[in-house]
């Protein structure tokens, strides 16, 4: 079964600085999707960024970018110019047929 591991339960970043959240996953498949979701205190699940495994180019969405290392099964999220509104739980997820989530990283942004 696919497993997703987030080894950083908590991370902290200064406003306007850059932070990287780590994620590794285990799969024997070659075709799949990877995601980062953000969950603020409202509990809403908000898609941050997606990466198709067949694409070598790393995905970017404004201040958010990923470092996708398929051979290493690593998928980290970089948040640039951190803002107070970025404070939330961040979940890494793997999707093939269903979607599996990591345990999450709680990001604190200090003003």
């Amino acid at each position, binding site marked *: 079964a696919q497993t997703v591991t987030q080894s950083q339960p908590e991370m902290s970043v200064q406003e306007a600085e850059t932070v990287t959240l780590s994620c590794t996953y285990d799969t024997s498949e070659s075709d799949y999707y990877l995601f980062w979701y953000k969950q603020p205190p409202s509990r809403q699940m908000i898609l941050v960024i997606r990466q198709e495994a067949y694409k070598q180019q790393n995905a970017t969405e404004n201040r958010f970018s990923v470092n996708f290392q398929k051979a290493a099964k690593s998928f980290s999220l970089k948040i640039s110019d951190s803002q107070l509104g970025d404070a939330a739980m961040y979940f890494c997820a793997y999707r093939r047929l269903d979607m599996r989530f990591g345990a*999450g990283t709680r990001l604190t942004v200090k003003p």
Partner: protein
Amino acid sequence: NAGVTQTPKFRILKIGQSMTLQCAQDMNHNYMYWYRQDPGMGLKLIYYSVGAGITDKGEVPNGYNVSRSTTEDFPLRLELAAPSQTSVYFCASSYPLGSGGAPGELFFGEGSRLTVL
């Protein structure tokens, strides 16, 4: 824009009671899912469905049942509620991989907080 609608949003149950969490989506998605999220934890997959009449177990199916009689609805049944089922439950829906817009993305409801006392 309704998206994925879950009811109820909050519920308190006594041990041994049963209830059904309702989930409906209006995006014509084939795939639907139920997750639970315990405090400070990630989402664990309970059951999922790839279409009407087809369901399959996820990571934590014990104590739950599902049915999928229509494309739109995917109710989750809790039989003989136990304190271990105290959690926030999320329903989600999506297109199959490789089809439709928003490739691979799951669309989530707002969650249902269930407490079993």
